[in-house]
């Protein structure tokens, strides 16, 4: 759960909204049709792969700073199989949540 005051969350939301807008605007309006170096382009394109993978593992295998192995692992496994088979997101989330909830209930 949140460690800081709700006001800090508001500050973060405002800073994030401003940064996200500036990033979008910078490419579309300021830089125009200039080309970025190929390497830069490729590395930016890899950000989601690196970060999403880290986020999946953090949200499945950790609580705070400790590594744990709990009911979320069942949901994780189910979600991987469902996403692999190209199930729609809502199906993936419902299946994963059911697996985790079921394991907690028994």
């Amino acid at each position, binding site marked *: *759960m*949140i*460690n*800081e005051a709700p006001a800090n*969350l*508001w500050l*973060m*939301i*405002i800073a994030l909204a401003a*940064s*996200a*807008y500036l*990033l*979008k*605007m*910078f*490419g*579309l*309006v300021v*830089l125009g*049709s*200039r*080309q970025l170096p190929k*390497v830069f382009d490729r590395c*930016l*394109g*890899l*950000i*989601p*792969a*690196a*970060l*999403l*993978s*880290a*986020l*999946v*593992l*953090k*949200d499945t295998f950790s*609580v*705070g*700073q*400790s590594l744990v192995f709990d009911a*979320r692992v069942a*949901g*994780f496994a189910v*979600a991987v199989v469902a*996403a*692999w088979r190209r199930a*729609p*997101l*809502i199906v*993936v*989330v419902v299946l*994963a*949540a*059911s697996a*985790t909830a*079921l394991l907690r209930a028994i």
Partner: protein
Amino acid sequence: MSETRRVVVSSLTLSGAVGIFALSFGVASVSAGASVWQTCALSLFVFTGASQFSAMSVVGAGGSMVAAFGGAVLLAARNLVYGLALSSSAKSVAGNLPRRLFAAHFVIDETTALALAESSPKLRKVAFWTTGIGLFSFWNLGTLIGALAGSAIDPQKFGLDIAFPAAFIVMLMPHLRSKLGRQAAMLGGALCLISISFLPVGVPILLAATAVLVGVRNDQ
């Protein structure tokens, strides 16, 4: 005319599907401790899915606001590339400067993909704006419904703490198609797992970003 119709239909279909994604964001965000208002503000003003998910995932785990912000901004950085890709047709898509400043808010994965899929300037414009406005509407409606539903139930009991990783897995899949994508994902994941126990919460996500350097040497 039928061409325009085809573009509008595919844009709105995609927008509806994304609305479902927003439902899970709303639920997950309030489960992580944000209020309904804060959750809606994220969708209205940040309006770039992966960043919103990432920010609340770090905050919910007890991470600092700075760490949450850092990871989310890194994920938003690709919108810069989308803006660049769209800028060659910016005049026909958005017209004068005030319009382009307004259009910038809608520069995300989906609008870029659908606009650039069209070859005529006119259809590009239709694709960009129908996807942008349609998706923005569904994204925010879905977020609100999800947030209200999420605050009415006990997230632990319904296993909703798995909503974040499940959504991240779905978002990750397309990036695993390329060899470089798989390398970055494996390295990023490994860096995160290794550093979780000694770095402050959320910082391992920033460390994982260094995995994009696999793209430096590899020329394909």
